């Protein structure tokens, strides 16, 4: 049952494309197998993918090349919108902010997740089943609700966490001040996603053969050495996948700051993150063409970072 998915973890959890396990040689020998029904089976999905992902992508690029004016209507403007986006310091501030956010949040989340996954996998913590369940719960909480809860909890002055910080002698902390807003968002996102990452890593660690651990113990390796030197390298493909998914998520950061903006408008600017910039430009200011151009630039930035990441891995020979 579910275990079979678990079992597929070591290879399946990396993002590389595997060939289907049906061996072409055997199929060819039998000769009579019709292969075209495969195309029919995937057709409905490809149709939806085309209509709801490819068409909008193409249309976004098309729209971004035009400009709509109050007087004079819509006209072709070439790269003018792109120039406007690329010259917008607000846009680049946002890009810089989500990069900084990602550089801190992604390693923290994955390190925490791996730490917990490893000690649960080693079976050295009591009630580990209970902890695993609890840690995963935020996955079921929408980002909107998470941000609302944390907005109240971190409320300057009255909020329980500000009171708590004061009791610890940290003074009057304003979690939404310009210095602390980024750490606050990092805290919220760590709360949301650590358990989810932990679950994936735990499943991956579980698929390491028991003999590997036993051999290491016989050799006299300590627990921490086994975890960091033996198990971590074995689940590296999963870690890479998680770094990739978390980074893409971080660069798209939108829900949490947009909800916090209602509570603390001064803390979240127009272009706080690139996604907010896209939203505020298009929906807030009604400049759809400019918004489309910003969306295309954001997609390109994410694409370039992802491809660069994969290229580095491939060059290091860790990716087949």
């Amino acid at each position, binding site marked *: 049952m579910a275990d079979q998915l678990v079992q597929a973890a070591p290879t399946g959890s990396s993002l590389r494309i595997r060939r289907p396990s049906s061996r072409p040689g055997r199929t060819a020998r039998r000769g009579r197998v019709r292969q075209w029904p495969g195309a029919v089976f995937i057709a409905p999905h490809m149709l939806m993918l085309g209509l709801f992902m490819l068409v909008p992508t193409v249309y976004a690029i098309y729209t971004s090349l035009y400009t709509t004016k109050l007087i004079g209507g819509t006209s072709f403007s070439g790269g003018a919108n792109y120039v406007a986006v690329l010259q917008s310091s607000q846009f680049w501030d946002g890009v810089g902010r989500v990069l900084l956010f990602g550089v801190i949040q992604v390693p923290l989340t994955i390190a925490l997740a791996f730490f917990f996954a490893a000690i649960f996998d080693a079976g050295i913590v009591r009630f580990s089943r209970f902890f695993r369940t609890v840690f995963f719960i935020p996955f079921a909480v*929408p980002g909107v609700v998470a941000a609302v809860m944390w907005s109240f909890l971190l*409320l300057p002055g009255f909020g*329980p966490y500000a009171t708590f910080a004061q009791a610890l002698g940290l003074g009057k902390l304003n979690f939404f001040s310009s210095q602390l807003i980024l750490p606050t968002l990092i805290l919220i996102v760590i709360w949301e996603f650590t358990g989810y990452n932990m679950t994936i890593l735990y499943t*991956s660690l579980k698929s390491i053969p028991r003999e590997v651990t036993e051999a290491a113990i016989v050799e006299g390796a300590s627990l921490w050495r086994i975890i960091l030197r033996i198990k971590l390298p074995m689940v590296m493909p999963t870690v890479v996948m998680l770094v990739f998914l978390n980074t893409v998520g971080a660069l798209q950061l939108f829900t949490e700051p947009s909800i916090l903006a209602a509570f603390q408008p001064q803390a979240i600017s127009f272009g706080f993150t*690139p996604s907010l910039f896209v939203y505020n430009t298009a929906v807030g200011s009604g400049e759809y063409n400019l918004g489309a151009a910003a969306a295309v630039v954001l997609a390109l930035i994410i694409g370039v970072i992802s491809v660069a990441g994969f290229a580095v891995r491939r060059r290091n020979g860790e990716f087949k």
Partner: protein
Amino acid sequence: MSRRAKRQSTELVPAHLYGLRRGTTSALTVLCLLFAIFVLAPLVWLLINATKNQAYVYGSFGFWFAGPFRLFQNIAELGQDISGAGIFVEWLGNTLIYAVLGAVGATILSALAGYGFARFRFRGANALFFLVMATLLVPITSLALPLFLVYAKVGLVNSIWGMILPSTVSVVGIYLMRTYIEASVPQDLIEAARMDGASELRIFLGIAMPLSVPGLVTVLLITVVAVWNNYFLPLIIFSKNSLYPLTVGLSSVSAAAESGTKADLVPVLITGGLVTVLPLIVLFLFLERYFRAGALQGSLTG
């Protein structure tokens, strides 16, 4: 291989073999406990504050009850339109419709496509699968706005199908179904059925799908959560508040509550948040093992 892996995953190496000091185990357990408190605290806060009125939400200690017990009045207010923001119960109904239809659609499409990719070698299969995986790279924020602009052209703005149809595209669903079918539907079985003259559709419905039920449940759950928690797409494509799902509805209440000269909206916001998360947490606790398996290759969205 399968049986062997299963045995290994259920039997732990006895902890004492690691030669840890007793203090280490206790310290680690304490660390886990602290993190568990960190995780549960906001949810406990939500539960407690759903019983308060607005004054006590701000004026009393967040982690204990205070003032009149108003949980049921707060829940009753979810059925009313307060200050024109919309009606929570309608949003709940919308969310159920979007989540159920979107997830069922995504599961059907993923099962078909996963089977197609797993068990057929047709021209262009690898390229198409690569294309499917590459769409993981396209950020939802870059997609939702153009989608809205296309909807404006074809009249899908403020249509529930504008929300449901894109939700049926699930890259993770396809990946999971393909992996699952490769592992649990033997090629020989399919070929034996072909020898007997069964049609391809019959093989799919009668053999492949019954063997894939756990995989199907996993995909269904993952996509229900994804649609239930989706915020950006409905935020962009709906302008009528009677069409909002819970996430967008709550964010509008949140904005109204904070810009706030309006009536007591904070209890509605908090109680609404509670009612939004409870169904999914309950669903998750009951069907946890499916989530665990599926989370394996799930995707993260920001």
